[in-house]
């Protein structure tokens, strides 16, 4: 079935849309408060100051569920634990793919090592891309990168 023949939205979901939009407006109003906006900046400051502390900041205040863009600093989630992948020294594993180069390089820790969780999950993603067919398109594969930044 392709999207052009997708059945109509279930009535229960359509009714829930009102609740969703009402909750969305309330959330928006809450996040616009001056104090909230000030607090939202703090994790970014912490990130810039210390990658090690940043891992905790991401875990506690920013969801690692964002598809990142090239040119941004990428962090990586361990899909087995839901926690960010860290280097042996406790710092967050990060990498900034160049926006003008389609080749995605390998992120390395300061000692040159590559955490096993990254290597294994990267291989799973490559295997998935090779196998992607009827059930899943490549873009719905087990990606595990997220943008290392944070508002909200």
């Amino acid at each position, binding site marked *: *079935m392709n*999207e052009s023949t*997708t*059945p*109509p*939205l*279930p*009535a*229960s*979901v359509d*009714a*829930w*849309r009102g*609740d*969703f*939009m009402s*909750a*969305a*407006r*309330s*959330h*928006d109003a809450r996040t616009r408060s001056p104090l909230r906006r000030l607090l939202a900046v703090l994790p970014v400051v912490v990130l810039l100051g210390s990658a090690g502390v940043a891992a905790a900041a991401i875990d506690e205040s920013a*969801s690692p*569920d*964002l*598809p990142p*863009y090239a040119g941004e600093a990428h962090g990586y*989630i361990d*899909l*087995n634990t*839901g926690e960010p992948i860290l280097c042996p020294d406790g710092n967050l594993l990060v990498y900034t793919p160049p926006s003008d180069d389609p080749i995605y390089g390998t992120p390395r820790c300061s000692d040159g090592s590559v955490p096993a969780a990254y290597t294994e999950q990267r291989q799973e993603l490559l295997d998935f891309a090779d*196998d*992607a*067919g*009827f*059930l*899943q*398109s490549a*873009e*719905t*594969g*087990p*990606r*595990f990168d*997220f*943008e290392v930044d944070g*508002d*909200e």
Partner: protein
Amino acid sequence: MDSLARALHDSTDDPGSFEVIFLSQFNPLLSRLVRQVWDSEIAVDIAAETLAETFIRRRRFRGCTDRELVGWINGIASRKLALFYRKHQVEKRALSKLGIEPPTLTEEEHHEVLHRIDEPVMREIVRDGLAALSETQQEALQLRIVDEMPYEELAARLEITEEAARARVARGLAGLRRQLRNHQPLLREFG
């Protein structure tokens, strides 16, 4: 700038603009997800969580085309899906931030959503995958996916709690997904 991408950018200042995204994306997401998890309730929960996350993170979207927007939303959905398979439960963090529960479908709607994957070839492949699972997982998936039994009834039948029933189905789905990786050439043939 394309219309949906524009609506998402506009929703930064006017949250009401997000309704256009909801109306255009929930149903395609639901159809795509139910073909990946074979469970209407799980698919609805992930679709709802994905749109909640999309709303919360809308300021981060940098694209200007609808194609980029759909890809971005699919990326969020894929992360939610991956976490579901790893943790055997749907993460509802974004919904929690909004302060709402996911929608509850009627039994009739559950059947309608499940029938979006009602293709004979798919059923045969799923049946093959089921045969490779443990008996308890087979039974749980047979009752839930094939017989379309509500979780409450399924739990009573298996004499376990509803929470345990959901966990058993989720673990079975993760096992089924691994089994079906072996069918990719066949699936591709029918794709």
